[in-house]
């Protein structure tokens, strides 16, 4: 795999993970407040833009690699999102949840190695 491919995989991962955190924050906010305000709209839009970037980068990569090989890289996002949800969004992270997320990631890495 070329350096460019690796870089694009990383960028698509980072945009995806940040989009999820931003969207969760927006939706958590909307559960308690109205949706018609700048705070909510701005965050949802940012999330959508980031997801779109991630989406098109993935399309570019899909033309060069098998889906079953490439797709699981996104699985690394399980670890990132679970940990960042605990750190940034202050969600409770039980030992069970942490081990579950680790196993999922380990499995996904195995899939992408093979």
């Amino acid at each position, binding site marked *: 795999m070329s350096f460019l491919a690796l870089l694009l995989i990383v960028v698509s991962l980072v945009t995806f993970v940040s989009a999820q955190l931003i969207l969760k924050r927006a*939706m958590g906010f909307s559960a308690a407040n109205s949706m018609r305000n700048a705070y909510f709209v701005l965050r949802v839009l940012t999330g959508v833009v980031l997801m779109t970037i991630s989406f098109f980068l993935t*399309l570019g990569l899909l033309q060069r690699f098998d889906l079953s090989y490439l797709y699981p890289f996104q699985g690394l996002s399980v670890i990132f999102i679970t940990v960042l949800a605990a750190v940034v969004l202050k969600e409770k992270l039980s030992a069970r949840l942490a081990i579950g997320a680790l196993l999922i990631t380990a*499995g996904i890495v195995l899939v992408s190695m093979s």
Partner: protein
Amino acid sequence: MQNRPSGFCNPWLQLGLSIACVFVSELLLKRGVTEVAEPESALSWTGLNGLASPLVWWAILLIVASFISWLYVLRYVPLSVAYPLSRVVDVLVPLGCWFFLSERISALRWCGIALVVTGLALVAKPIAKMEERL
């Protein structure tokens, strides 16, 4: 997760719908971009040439649907629970690739799939208990 709506608005049902849409869209995307692939063109790294395929447009429709369900799920379910569960697609997609796209799955890859399933079961079990009590 109090005041959780039931029926079609149940967040867990919506999570399932969102996962199903993602699963189908991934297979459509792979098939779609393969049809119009131009590996020599530098522009195709952006993926934009994929838009020439109708299958890619169907996939985008499904992705929008899954995105709406997903936003709804995020209203009720913590991200650290919903996201690992949504990765059940990491099992479904390789199985779908094997079944529908005739990609090969090695022994190691099957082991990886088994690990993912174990992890998912760990994440999902406390939720199943919690739901029983409600």
